[in-house]
């Protein structure tokens, strides 16, 4: 990616993610993450030039919530921008912050993603995304069993269900090490068969246990120009590249023609631009937006451009575990915590924390030189990031 100047991530702040945060209102909740991020970056709000804000506004039914949230974001007297792109909002906020710093308009930008899903109705809200005339009757919100059906169709019921549950349990084991994670269930692999049968079905073989949570919470990230980042932070996480790809339809309307996912498209472009031949060895870690364990396992193949059942083997072999060869979602992923407007940002934040060696108990044991993070939203939209330990070479 061509860039005017480098941008480093120098601070991350998160609230605890939880199904209920009745003890705080929206600005108060955001303030917790703002305070934590400023502390992590070692700066005060006076050092921040611009505040970028986003969430899914229809969920909490607050019009232009950045106006009210000024109280908690510290944006009084500052330049501001509000961006919202559904599930990808958090990732788009990172892109916006990156643009704003790389452009030279600002030296330090704070980005805030938040959601208080308890105050809205997630499935009802997402159902309202569909066209009121043609598609709303068919919408099931974010609950779709299509991927489960496809994976079962391709790999057989027994193996597909087993791998999906393995993925789920690995994510839970990661979440158990993350004090911010919402669902920390303490699952054991011995429970896999039982859970596949007893967890309530949502749509087809997509069961409650497979699906991401509805969470309240906020994530805040602080971005700085190369000069400032080096001054303020011992080990910033540098933004090397990002790519955004949208598509609206979820299947190919032209018979058997192959359906190219935005995950695969984005990954191909990203690897091509950054000369990555083998993502599993050249990238040290992947923090992926995984709305359910069915999607999580399926998208590994798309993002890593794998063939056949390689993605299933990665899970079966335990490669994706924190201590594995290719750690995926050391945070526990979206399945564990899903405050929608923040979720995609948490993915980038986690990748940054891993590079900064600041992830705490869920820090992966290996040195993370290059990390990938993804956001997902809308219908089938992807934002894909590449972060590095060393500042990228400017090759304009």
């Amino acid at each position: 990616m061509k860039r005017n100047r480098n941008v480093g991530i120098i601070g991350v702040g998160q609230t605890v993610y939880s199904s209920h945060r009745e003890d705080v209102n929206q600005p108060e909740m955001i303030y917790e993450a703002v305070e934590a991020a400023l502390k992590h970056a070692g700066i005060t709000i006076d050092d921040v030039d611009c505040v970028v804000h986003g969430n899914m506004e229809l969920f909490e039914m607050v019009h232009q919530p950045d106006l009210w949230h000024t109280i908690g974001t510290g944006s009084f007297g500052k330049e501001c921008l509000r961006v919202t792109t559904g599930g990808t909002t958090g990732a788009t906020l990172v892109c916006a912050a990156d643009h704003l710093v790389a452009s030279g308009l600002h030296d330090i930008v704070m980005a805030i993603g938040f959601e208080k899903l308890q105050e809205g109705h997630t499935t009802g809200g997402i159902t309202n995304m569909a066209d009121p005339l043609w598609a709303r009757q068919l919408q099931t919100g974010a609950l779709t069993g299509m991927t489960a059906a496809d994976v079962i169709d391709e790999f057989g019921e027994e193996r597909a269900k087993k791998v999906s549950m393995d993925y789920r349990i690995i994510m839970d084991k990661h979440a158990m090490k993350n004090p911010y994670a919402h669902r920390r269930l303490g699952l054991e692999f011995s429970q896999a068969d039982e859970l596949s049968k007893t967890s309530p079905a949502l749509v087809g073989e997509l069961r409650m246990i497979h699906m991401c949570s509805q969470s309240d919470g906020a994530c805040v990230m602080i971005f700085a120009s190369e000069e400032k980042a080096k001054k303020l932070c011992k080990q910033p996480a540098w933004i090397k590249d990002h790519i955004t790809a949208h598509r609206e339809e979820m299947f190919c309307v032209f018979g058997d023609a192959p359906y190219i996912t935005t995950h695969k498209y984005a990954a191909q472009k990203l690897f091509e631009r950054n000369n990555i031949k083998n993502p599993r060895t050249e990238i040290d870690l992947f923090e992926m937006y995984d709305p359910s364990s069915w999607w999580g396992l399926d998208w590994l193949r798309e993002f890593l451009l794998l063939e056949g059942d390689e993605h299933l083997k990665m899970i079966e072999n335990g490669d994706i575990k924190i201590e594995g060869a290719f750690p995926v979602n050391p945070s526990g992923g979206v399945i564990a915590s899903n405050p929608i407007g923040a979720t995609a940002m948490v993915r980038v934040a986690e990748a940054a924390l891993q590079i900064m060696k600041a992830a705490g108990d869920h820090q992966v044991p290996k040195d993370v030189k290059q990390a990938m993070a993804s956001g997902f939203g809308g219908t089938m939209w992807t934002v894909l990031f590449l972060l590095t330990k060393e500042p990228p070479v400017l090759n304009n």
Partner: protein
Amino acid sequence: MNKKVGICAVAQTTYERDKWHQRFQGMALEVLESLLNQTGLDFSEDGGINTTISVSDDIFDARTISDNAMTDVLGAHFRCEEKVAQEGIQAIYYGVSAILSGHTDFVLIIGHCKESQAKSRNMVTHVAFDPFYTRPVGLDFCAAAGIQAQAYCQKSKITDEHLAKIVVRARQNAQKNAYTKDVSMLTMENVLSSQMIADPIRELHAYPVSDGAVGIILASEEKAKKITDKPVWIAGVGNCMDSFFLGDRDVTSNFALKKASERAYKRASITDPKTLDVIEVSDQYAYQLPMWMEGLGMCDDGKSAEWLNSNNLDKYNVNPSGGMLAGNPLILGGLVRAAEAALQLRGEAGEHQVKGAKTALAHGVMGPAGQFHSVIILKTE
């Protein structure tokens, strides 16, 4: 700003009270087709438009992720589309940063709003207030504007006649604007006798509810010169957020607008705003036109009554398009102002063209009593 970003094309639909015959996708398509025709651009992988910024509002659209329904219209199939859910002029702020960062060469911006669908604008703006303290009081943007108008008119000695004159002038200008001919001509008497909706704001002091769409293509300096021989350069941008609780604010201080415009002037190296050739401000209510003039530094604090009496609105070419009082949907006001300013500098403003305009200012405002302001400076050189 380190480099220049150019506006290469501008397109608008007409603004009408109720475009019941068109969906928001249809309005946007009209704009998109015009922009592509003007520039010859497409969405090809190599050298086409790869970044789109849409402007809409989920609550106005009554659709979660309302840009989802726009992916195809915006050319975002396997491309990037981001949605600014604020005053539309902020899409330019975002687009400028995306180009200056070096990440992209072209940015397509399209904003749409069907205010008619939301039935009551005050229902939408009512939910911009916090649910605990200010929403139960029944506040909406209009009521908040009423509080501001009271204080400001008293401070700056603005009378009911001043406000009526502003509305009549806006309607006169609107008659020359091909996109706002839907608004009818009014007399002073019509305005002075119109119903009071939030004292001293009368019904005819408020911008007319309308539907419409507007779009702009931004390009890096090098690319802009290739696709148009009349680029308009964005020389400076700036915005600012004020406090949320009205009780925390001096609502007549113009705090946010002063800061926003100072930032834009500084980036554009403007030392005296009175040297600007055209000024397009978002006047959602008549009292705001002179008030924002104080905020922009066009006239001294508290002196706008005299300033109006001296016919300065015409002298400084303020809102030759008719402004928001001629009817642009709420969240598009500032983006339309920028589009109008660009048309003026391209010499394409039609009957309301200001002769030889070389510099312009566009302004957008959002939030109760102007909590958030955004200013852009445009130049031909």
